[in-house]
């Protein structure tokens, strides 16, 4: 119960802090070029997004290929060890 109350009060106090630091957001805020944002992904006609998608696909397929390779390695070990023993 104590913990619960502490948590609630903490939330309230955080809300107050947030309000003190808040300032009005207008339509102009979205066009303000003086503030730096993570714009790289939106530059150049958003080509970076396409590159990111292709890279994710390639990395995914690569990881899958690596896992097949490893699996095959394990099977190889088993089969060829058996052959030596028999």
């Amino acid at each position: 119960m104590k913990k619960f109350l502490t948590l609630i009060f903490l939330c309230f106090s955080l809300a107050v802090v947030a309000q003190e630091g808040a300032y009005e957001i207008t339509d102009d805020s979205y066009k303000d070029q003086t503030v730096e944002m993570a714009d790289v992904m939106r530059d150049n006609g958003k080509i970076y997004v396409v590159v990111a998608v292709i890279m994710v696909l390639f990395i995914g397929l690569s990881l899958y290929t690596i896992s097949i390779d490893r699996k095959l390695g394990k099977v190889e070990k088993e089969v060829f060890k058996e052959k030596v023993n028999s």
Partner: protein
Amino acid sequence: MKKHWWKALALILVSYTILAGLLMDAPRLYLLNETIRNLHFHVTMWFGMVILLTISMVYALKYLRTNNPIFDDKSVEMAKIGVLMGVLGIITGAIWANYTWGEPWSGDTKQNAAAICLLIYFAYLVLRNSMQDEQQKARVSGVYNIFAYAAMIPLLFILPRLDPNSLHPGNGGNPGFNSYDLDSKLRVIFYPAVIGWTLMGVWLANLRIRTRQIERALED
């Protein structure tokens, strides 16, 4: 770990191809526009195919000299991945042609020759499957492989250059690349791309070759 370095190299080079191929400066050319970047993806498929089919042919020769079935396995699997790259090359070529030459198939000499070349290699795969006896299959298809390779060289490298009206760059009595389609900035991406895609093909072939070895081991 030592024997896996080339697989890592393949992944690094292809990643570099995608990143640099799509993002680095490309020459601004009429009609081609951004599609010049296809050089690192479409053209490399054909380079990879020729390299893989060469490896396949060498293994076919080795098989015929030694009768060791492992060379036959290597020969077939290299050829299969080579044919896959060729098919991908012809499809990507049709897409590229649609937006630069106006239609996916314009009966260009190199397009036709590439299609014939693929048909010859399809016949190779069908021929293999038509025979029951393992040794006969390997011998006949090994001989055919060498013939197919000998047919591919003039189809891809000589015939298109004899045609003055070929749409492909570097043709019409104009051997190799010229400054129009390959400058030094593109080369920096293109050559690593060829190596990267080829190594990827070798890797996939390698997986299938190893599967065949396991199958053989389980059979006897």
